[in-house]
């Protein structure tokens, strides 16, 4: 077992603060790194030492591997915590960190290579017994082959061009007749668009929810799985609100999935923190991807399970044993996280600028992870998420009540934030009754826009 006495945090913003706090709680010294745009940032103020590693643009500072390693070596840090984003899932960087005798606080490079890449990850997931979206094993040769696969998978299905991507070269198919018509068309389109007419087929999920399971594994083969987070409220693949547990699951569905995830994590010899992400539809789970790092929404798990996940990451990296088993993990109540972005709550245009007043909410069951303060100027260079408000209560309805109270208390002046959107979502009956899925928020926002335009034109008509 190695002792970690000083940690360099290769990140900024709220997550850098989150890690500094965990280190301080453990009596570990901290080194902050920062770009010239972040001279006045909170993580620089709160760390024991700080090193300016480059100019504002991330590629020259927070993604500058050499500068970060040099800073770690010159400050005699023992370990590097990458947070999320930036260098957190760069396997080559993990190799370099270890070559320099430093400890990486996260899964090892091989695991990141294996699970960080989507295609690799699906193969590994299948091998480790995780349920995946059913599909044709490889290319579909002809229409007979296609019909055969569709029968096997079950309609609706999606035919996809192997060379396509980003939403192009795919079509939803609802029955055999549609497939007969569409197959030659998609094939021809694919040939023209991508110079390759290889097609494959996957089951089409119409209303999936995003449900994910938190993994912790030590270097001695011990693994635990924390109960799930429901992150179905998303806009452009960005999570907006996350909760723990997923109230749509039955206890049996939860327990079964924990067992499946535990077996998979054990089989892949997973170490440190990670997350298995799934789509959940009609009682079935389908593996989406794995995040080989700490996640933004980790605090909801912390509040429900009474665990400090960053502390666990550091302990695991130092070679300590978990010291508890699956049966020791007990969920208490319900937690919801709200991401507060410096964005217009209707158009989502980023709104950087000076925060003239910052007064976060408080009281029982309210936690705010943020790195901003009154007088702080939000730089346009980085992510627009400026705060996470996490609320905990004994039940989901109580949690919603408390969240509404806390959002009402939250004052951020000088810039626009997404707080009004979060308030609106909590009043919505679909959100309250969990009648949502991964597409719900985008549809909701679309409807809101239409409503507004209609209202405006009605008002204009009145004036005339």
């Amino acid at each position, binding site marked *: 077992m190695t002792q970690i006495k000083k940690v360099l945090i290769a990140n900024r913003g709220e997550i850098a603060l989150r890690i500094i706090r965990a280190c301080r709680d453990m009596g570990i010294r901290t080194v902050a790194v920062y770009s010239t745009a972040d001279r006045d940032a909170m993580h620089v103020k709160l760390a024991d030492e700080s090193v300016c590693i*480059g100019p504002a643009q991330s590629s020259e500072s927070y993604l500058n591997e050499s500068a970060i390693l*040099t800073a770690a070596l010159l400050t*005699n840090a023992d370990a590097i915590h990458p947070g999320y984003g930036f260098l957190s899932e760069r396997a080559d960087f993990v190799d370099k960190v270890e070559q320099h005798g430093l400890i990486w606080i996260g899964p090892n490079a091989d695991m990141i290579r294996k699970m960080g890449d989507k295609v690799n990850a699906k193969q590994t997931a299948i091998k480790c017994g995780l349920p995946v979206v059913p599909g044709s094993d490889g290319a579909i040769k002809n229409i007979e082959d296609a019909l055969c696969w569709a029968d096997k998978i079950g309609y609706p299905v999606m035919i996809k061009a192997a060379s396509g991507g980003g939403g192009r070269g795919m079509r939803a198919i609802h029955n055999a007749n549609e497939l007969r018509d569409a197959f030659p068309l998609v094939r021809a389109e694919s040939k023209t668009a991508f110079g390759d007419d290889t097609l494959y087929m996957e089951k089409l999920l119409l209303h999936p929810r995003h449900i994910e399971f938190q993994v912790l594994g030590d270097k001695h083969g011990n693994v635990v799985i924390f109960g799930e987070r429901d992150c179905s409220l998303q806009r452009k693949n960005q999570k907006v609100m996350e909760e723990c547990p997923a109230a749509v699951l039955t206890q049996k569905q939860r327990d079964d999935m924990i067992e499946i995830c535990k077996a998979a994590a054990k089989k892949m010899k997973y170490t440190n923190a990670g997350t298995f992400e799934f789509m959940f539809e009609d009682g079935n789970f389908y593996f989406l991807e794995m995040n080989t790092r700490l996640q933004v929404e980790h605090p909801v798990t912390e509040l429900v399970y009474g665990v400090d996940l960053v502390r666990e990451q550091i302990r695991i990296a130092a070679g300590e044993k978990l010291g508890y088993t699956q049966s020791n993990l007990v969920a208490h109540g319900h937690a919801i996280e709200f991401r507060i972005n410096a964005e217009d709550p209707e158009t989502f245009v980023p709104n950087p600028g000076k925060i003239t007043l910052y007064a976060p909410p408080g009281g029982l069951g309210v936690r705010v992870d943020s790195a901003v303060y009154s007088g702080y100027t939000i730089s346009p260079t980085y992510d627009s998420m400026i705060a996470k408000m996490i609320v905990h209560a004994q039940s989901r309805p109580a949690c919603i009540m408390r969240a509404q109270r806390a959002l009402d208390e939250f004052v951020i002046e000088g810039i626009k934030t997404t707080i009004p959107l979060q308030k609106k979502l909590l009043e919505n009956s679909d959100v309250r009754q969990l009648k949502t899925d991964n597409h719900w928020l985008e549809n909701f926002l679309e409807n809101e826009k239409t409503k507004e335009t209609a209202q405006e034109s009605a008002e204009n008509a009145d004036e005339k």
Partner: protein
Amino acid sequence: MASFRATVENMSKLMDEMGITELDLERQLLLGLYRKHIHLSKQQAIATPVAGFVKQTKTDDKISGHVLKSPMVGVLYLSPEPGAKPFVKVGSAVKAGDTIALVEAMKTFNPVKSDVDGIVKEILVADTAAVEFDTPIAIIEQVPNDAN
């Protein structure tokens, strides 16, 4: 207890003499039933960070002349190799493109080149000091380009 107090006082004195800033003292009392763990720590006279990063000593408004800043985080060398003549001294005339110092990062040596013509007015960083990105290294007084 009196003897224990004396020990701590002696240690404290010893630390001052030897310039030690931190000392862990462990002592078992009463047949090992209690364990006193005493951590003596003294403020270092010079407030340098552990690795000795050069923090800006002068505020920008106190500096007159062109400031040459470090292009990266690393260890600064004022001469091409240990013991060799420094690249420049105070009073040296430099041309844009002349090497003023080297910054070592990940075992590579990167030249810090002057971006102006002028006279070296002040060197702000000591040889082998750790520098951050943008740490001021030298002040160069620009010479008006009358000759051309």
